[in-house]
Every structure is written in C-alpha cells, then in structure tokens.
C-alpha cells in the first residue's frame, strides 16, 4: 500500500481515524495471511491425526499435538526458505515470511523441539516418526541433496536436483511423508502395535491418506501454475494443463473412495470415523471439480478444509 493516498489532517481527526482503520485492516490481513499458512496446516495435520486415531480405534495420545507442531515447523521453515519464489503465487504469506523470517524460524525450531520432546516421552518409535517429516523436508526443499550430489560426483557431470523440483516425485514424497506421520503417529504415540489394530486396516488407511494428500498437494498447484512454470517446477497443471489435471485428480479421489470402501469392509475401523472421512472426501471432490473456478486464496486452503469438515463430523458423532 505504498501508493495509498494521504489525506490532510483535519481538526476533527478524520485523517488519523482513516489511517488507523487502514493500519488495522492491513494488520488483520497480515494476521490472516500468516494464519492461513503454517498455523492452518498445523491445525489440519492435528485434525487428520485425530481422525486417524479414531479410525484406527487406538487410545488418544499427544500424537495430534506433536504432528501439528511438526507440520507448523516444516511448513513455516519451507515458507521462509522459499519466500522469494512464493512472492508471485502467495504474496501476503511471502511478505510475512520475508519480514519475519528470523522469528518464524525460531518459532519453527522451538515447535520442532517441543514435538521431539513429546515424541521422546512417547518412546523410540514416536521419536523415529517425528524425525521423518524433518528428514524428508531436508531432502525435499533444502539444497542438501544437490550438495551431496556434487560431493559424490564431480560438478557438471551429474546434478542431483532438489526433490521439490522433480515432477510427481515431489507431490508423492509429500503425500507419503504425511501418510506415514498421520497413520503411524497414533500407533507410535499410543504405544499400539500394528497387529493389535490389524495390518489390512492400517495399510488401507495409509493408502487412503496418501492418495488424499496427493490431491491436496496438486490442487493448489492449479493456482501456482504460472509461478511454478516460471521457476521450471514441473507440477501436474504445468505439464498437463488445468483441465486434464482436474480429471486426473477426480480419478485419484475415486481411488480414495474405493480405499475407504475397502476400509469399511474390514470391519475394524470405527463407524463415526468412516463417516467423517467420507464427508471429507465429498468436500475434496467438490473442491477438485471447482479447482479452476475458485480464487487463489480459497484454493490454497479449500483442499485442507476437507479434514476440518471431517473433524467436525467426527465431533458431531460424539467421538
């Protein structure tokens, strides 16, 4: 708002009031942009783990909190690391990441520290689990892999890209990392073995979360198509166009529906959780169908809102 017109000050203080309102609005927009970033993702991750906890029928634990904190840490760090590149697609969030980069990184580091402390309290399996998203992020977004590639092979001969820059593998890596965290966290933090729940149930829920997460990652790419193309980041919309991407993602949603049906067929998953997951899937299908008609800000949060719907349904059903 650098070009915002300044009015002359009047004795009744009109200009000051106007400025104050504008400042407040700007501050609110900033808070909203921040909240729609890493904190929103953290809440969604926590709800996902809570729904998975219900679906698996394992005791409640600190898993949702720990995974939420890890999600906040990883996404906040990612937003800070890629702030300049995100300036075109998510300008408000990028502005906050650039301006408060140090504070965000401190918050992210402390979040991850608390998550690891919670995991240490829960035992070795939980500790190993919370290390997965951090390790994946290092390979996914940092320059650690390219640097390692340069060390192992002479520069120029073989160049190892960031995982974030590899077509489909980027979305698949994120989807798998979150599927591991969401499904394994309730088991690890609850101290429950896979056999106690039933391996087919765990596998089907894992597959369901993985394919759903894949859709959640690719749908916002419809919004980022111009910025990603400019940075040579290959995503489904960049490579196949928006129309074909929508059809592919609807197909993936259909696969998720099939996995949900199979999960229900095992008979071990709790019924309220299945209903909640089905409600979430319905929202996801609707968002995917409207992918090219929703505005950028909505598209950024809409896919993840399906989990909030699922969580609300779960609470409504008395979990």
């Amino acid at each position, binding site marked *: 708002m650098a070009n915002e017109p300044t009015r002359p000050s009047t004795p009744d203080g009109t200009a000051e009031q106007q400025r104050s309102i504008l400042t407040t609005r700007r501050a609110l927009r900033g808070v909203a942009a921040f909240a729609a970033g890493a904190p929103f993702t953290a809440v969604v991750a926590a709800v996902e783990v809570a729904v998975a906890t219900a679906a698996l029928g394992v005791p409640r634990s600190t898993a949702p909190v720990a995974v939420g904190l890890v999600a906040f840490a990883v996404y906040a760090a990612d937003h800070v690391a890629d702030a300049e590149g995100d300036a075109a697609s998510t300008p408000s969030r990028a502005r906050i990441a650039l301006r408060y980069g140090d504070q965000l990184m*401190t918050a992210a*580091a402390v979040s991850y*520290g608390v998550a690891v*402390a919670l995991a240490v309290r829960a035992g070795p399996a939980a*500790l190993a689990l919370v290390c997965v998203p951090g390790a994946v992020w290092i390979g996914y977004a940092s320059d650690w892999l390219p640097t390692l590639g340069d060390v192992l092979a002479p520069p120029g001969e073989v160049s190892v890209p960031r995982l974030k820059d590899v077509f489909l593998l980027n979305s698949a890596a994120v989807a798998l990392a979150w599927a591991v965290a969401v499904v394994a966290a309730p088991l690890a933090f609850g101290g429950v073995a896979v056999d106690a729940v039933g391996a087919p149930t765990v596998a089907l829920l894992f597959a369901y979360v993985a394919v759903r997460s894949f859709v959640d990652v690719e749908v916002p790419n419809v919004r980022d198509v111009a910025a990603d193309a400019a940075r040579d980041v290959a995503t489904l919309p960049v490579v196949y166009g928006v129309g074909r991407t929508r059809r592919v993602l609807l197909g993936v949603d259909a696969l998720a529906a099939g996995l949900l049906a199979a999960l229900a067929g095992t008979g071990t998953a709790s019924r309220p959780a299945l209903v909640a997951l089905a409600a979430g899937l319905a929202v996801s299908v609707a968002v995917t169908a409207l992918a090219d008609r929703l505005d950028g800000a909505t598209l950024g949060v809409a896919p993840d809102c399906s989990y909030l719907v699922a969580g609300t349904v779960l609470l409504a059903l008395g979990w």
Partner: protein
Amino acid sequence: MAALAPLSVALLVAVTIGLAAAILAWRERPEPGATWLAVLLAGQVWWATFLVFELEAATLPAKALWYDVQWVGVVAIPVGWLFFALSYTGYHRYVTRFSVALVSVIPVATVAVAAAGDPGDLLAVDRVVRETAVGTFLDIAPGPLYYVIAGYTYLLGAVGSVPLLQLIRDDARPFRGQSAALLIGTAAPWAGSVAYLTGAIPVPGLDPTPIVFAVSGVTYLFALSRFRLLTLAPAPRRRARQLVFEQLHDPVFVVGAEDLLVDLNESASETFGIDRRAAIGERAGAIVPRYDAVRELDGERGSPRPMSIVGRDGQRPYEVTIRDVVDDHDRTTAKVIAFHDVGAYLGQQQRLNVLNRVFRHDVRTETNLILGYAERLRADATDERALAIIEESAGRMLELSERTRTAGELFDPTEEAKSGALPDVVDEVVADARDLDPDARIETGRVPDVTVSSVLRVVLENLCSNAVRHNDTETSWVRIDAAVADGWVEVTVADDGPGIDPAEYDVLDRGTETPLRHGSGIGLWIVKWGVDHLGGRISFAEREPRGTTVTVSVPIDESVTGKPSSDEGR
C-alpha cells in the same frame, strides 16, 4: 504411559531447547562455525534423548542398550565444540578433513566399542540399576576407555576454549558477549561432569551433565539471538587482517627481537625477489634490503628519508617506516618494517621544482636578453649582432619549450607504455644526432638485441644531442656502446667535448635545486627522470684526455612476450 520421572522432564526441556538451537544454528550455514555448532547441539540432544529412554526403561538390558546409544552424542560434543571454536574464531585452516578424521579417531573407537557390546569391559566394568528418589539409574563402574574418552573430552574442550577466551578481551562488545555466552554454555555441562566424576553428586549413578544441557541450550539460543552469534562471527576479521598484510601494496617485513625475520608479505617477496619460505627464520640483515641503513633510521626515530633500493622493477626510492610490535606487558617482541615507494611522489616534486626554475630563471633570462637587444635594434636597426643574439635566445626558448613538452609526455600517466628493440632505438638516436651536426663522427659498438622501454630513447637522444651540441671541437665525436648482464642493459655514451660541470651532477644527485645551485636547462633532468622512471641508474665519468662518459643502466623490458628479450647473459 506412566508419569515421567522429574529428571526426564528436565531432560525433555533440554531436548526442546537444544534441538531448537541446533536447527537455528544449522540454518545459518555456511556462516563460520554454524555446522559444528549444530553438531555440538545435536550431540547434546542425542545424549539427553537417550538418557530419557534409559531412565524410562524398566530392565537392566534395556537401560544398558540406551546407555550405549548415548555414546554417539557424548563423543560428538567435544568434536563439535573444538571445530566450532576454531571455525568461529577464524582458525579455519585447522579445520580440514584430515584434522577432523584425526580428532574423531578416539570418539569413533569409543562408539565402536559401545556398539560391539563393550568387549573386555572397556567402558564399564560393572553396571547395576539403582533406585533413587529422583529416578532409576544405570549406575556404572567406569572402565579404562571411559577415563580415556573423558580425559580426551576435557582436552578438546580446553583447546577449543582458548580462542574463545581470547575474544573475552576483545574490544567489540558483541564478540565479548558471544564468547561469554558460549563459555558459560560449555562450562555448565563440564561442571556437571566434574561433579559426577569426583563423586560430588549425592545421588549414586546420576550424571547431571546432560541435564545441564538445558542451561547450554538457553545460553546458545541467547547468543544466537541477542549477540547474533553466527551472523556476526569474528572469523572474517582474522582473515581480513591477514589479507591486509598479504595484499598490502607496500613491501612489509616483520623482524623479531633477535633480528631474525619472522614474516614478510607477498609484496616484499615479489618486489625484492625473495623466496618467502627460505627467508623466514634467516637473519634480517641478509634478507631485508639495506637493513643497516634501516636500523639507523630506527635508532634516530627521525623523520623518514627516502633510500634507493634495487628491486625487481629496478632502482626505486623507498621511504621506510618502522613500528614496534608490543605484547600485553608492553615488551617489544618484533618490528614491522614497511617500505613505501615514493618514486612517483619524488619525481613529481622534482619536475615541479625544475619547471618552476625554468620559468622563473631560464625563460626570464632569455626574455630579458631579447628585450635588451630589441631595444638596441630600435636604436640601430642595422645592428646584426643584436639580431643574432635575439635569434639565438628565441631558439633556446623554443628548444626549452620542446624539451619541457617532452618531459611532460614522458611521464604522462595516460600514455601507454611503449617499447622497442635497442638497436632500432640506437639507430634513431644516431640519425637525430647526425641531423643536428652532419659533420659529427658518431660511432656505435655492438648493440645487443634486447627490448627496452621507449623512455630510454628519450634519455639517449638527450645525451647524444647534448654531446653534439655542446662539443667545442671542429668535428665532434660520440660513441655509443651497450652490454647486457643479469636482466639489465648498460648503455655508454662517450664524447670528446668539454665535459659536464660537476655542479650539474651534484644537483642531479641531490635531486633538488636551490636558487643558487641549479642545473642549466632541462636536458640533464630529462635524462635523470627518464632513468628514474625506468628504475635505472646513471653515472658520469671524465674521459682522458678530454670528454665525458655517461653510463645508463636500466632493466630490460620483460613485459613484451613472444620476443626474445636478450641474446646474451641468459
């Protein structure tokens, strides 16, 4: 899950803070020390994490397993600390793959022994579970390797603290703060370790070291945020100071109290052609140019005066400054001798003085002469002598003007340096001299085919024209000879004229003119400036029975590549 032991809660706090600090440190890569600080903090987090597992484990084997896993973190801490301290304070050259591998030998061996199940009870001769009021510990009776790694840890810790302790006394407040925070952060776990090893902890089996990591984490976090630990590291200062010394344009020598050469910079090595490795440790008198004269300057402590020194670029005048290196107890431990090339400055000063004299004295004299004889012409328009004197005087002024222009062009910094073959230069000079006096006998000896600066042409041209112009014999005689030795070319111009007044040499030698003592004209000055410009030397000698021999020695121009610069002496 059962309620945690109070100690586990403290350790979880240490894990949280330590991991946060480790992530923030890792983020600051490649700032000096960032990676190693992250290693240090990761080691602390590792140790604290698996100590929680050990505390929470119910059986002796389970506790023993987590105890052994802790060794990875335990041994990473001193290695991380040492290399962090070295990198952070600017001692990068000690952080090499070899040094890291060497320092890591004992830590890696310790982890290997722990991983192998402690064969031969090297780490612990006995392990028992102790129930105490603050938790259930694995109490161990240390084995020999335990004491080795403990001592090694203390050694690395002490070595790493030395450069940080130096920073405590630093002038810059941020570095003092950083250093203090780091030392507190490291001293706290050490204090815990010492208390454990000396049996000062009342709870048997309780090693408080990892618990105190919470203190370390807080101080490191404080140092990272408040004192900008890694974003404002002192490491570049050390390198920058070294660079200033190394890259300084002036040659600099450092001579120790025993007159032995301690150091010299690249400029000294290049300018005076000194092999740096061989020179350090030698007696200063054998290495430092004109060291005896330099020592006299040091004794006098007077205003510096220029002294001529022959270096790689020929003979140049240098002004020498000497500074004492004083230690913390005000004792002089060395002297820094800096040579500042004042050739350009002196040359400029001389030219201004001479041109000033030319205008004040020579031009004025000639003008007065012209005005006087012009008056006589007014009285008697047929006075041929007056007319001839006016013409001669005007001619001298024209010549003076031409030579002044030559002097200006000779030292024009915008002019590109030119060079040519010496035989061509000599031929041109001889041709010019014959134009002046077609009857003159001008001989040339053997002239080697070397490349010389075009400035030498101006020098020789002035010498030859002087020899021809001022010759009082019927047929003037001039001979030019040249020889090459050790990268220098020596050109001799001999004549049978009346000789040069010694007062002229004296003025040239002193380099300055006074109203009473000055040269005549500007020709000899152009010769001197040209020779100085080339870093050469000039000498005058009387010939028998009459005449003068002027010898000019200048370095061969080696800037021209692809052409042999000499056919002799190489």
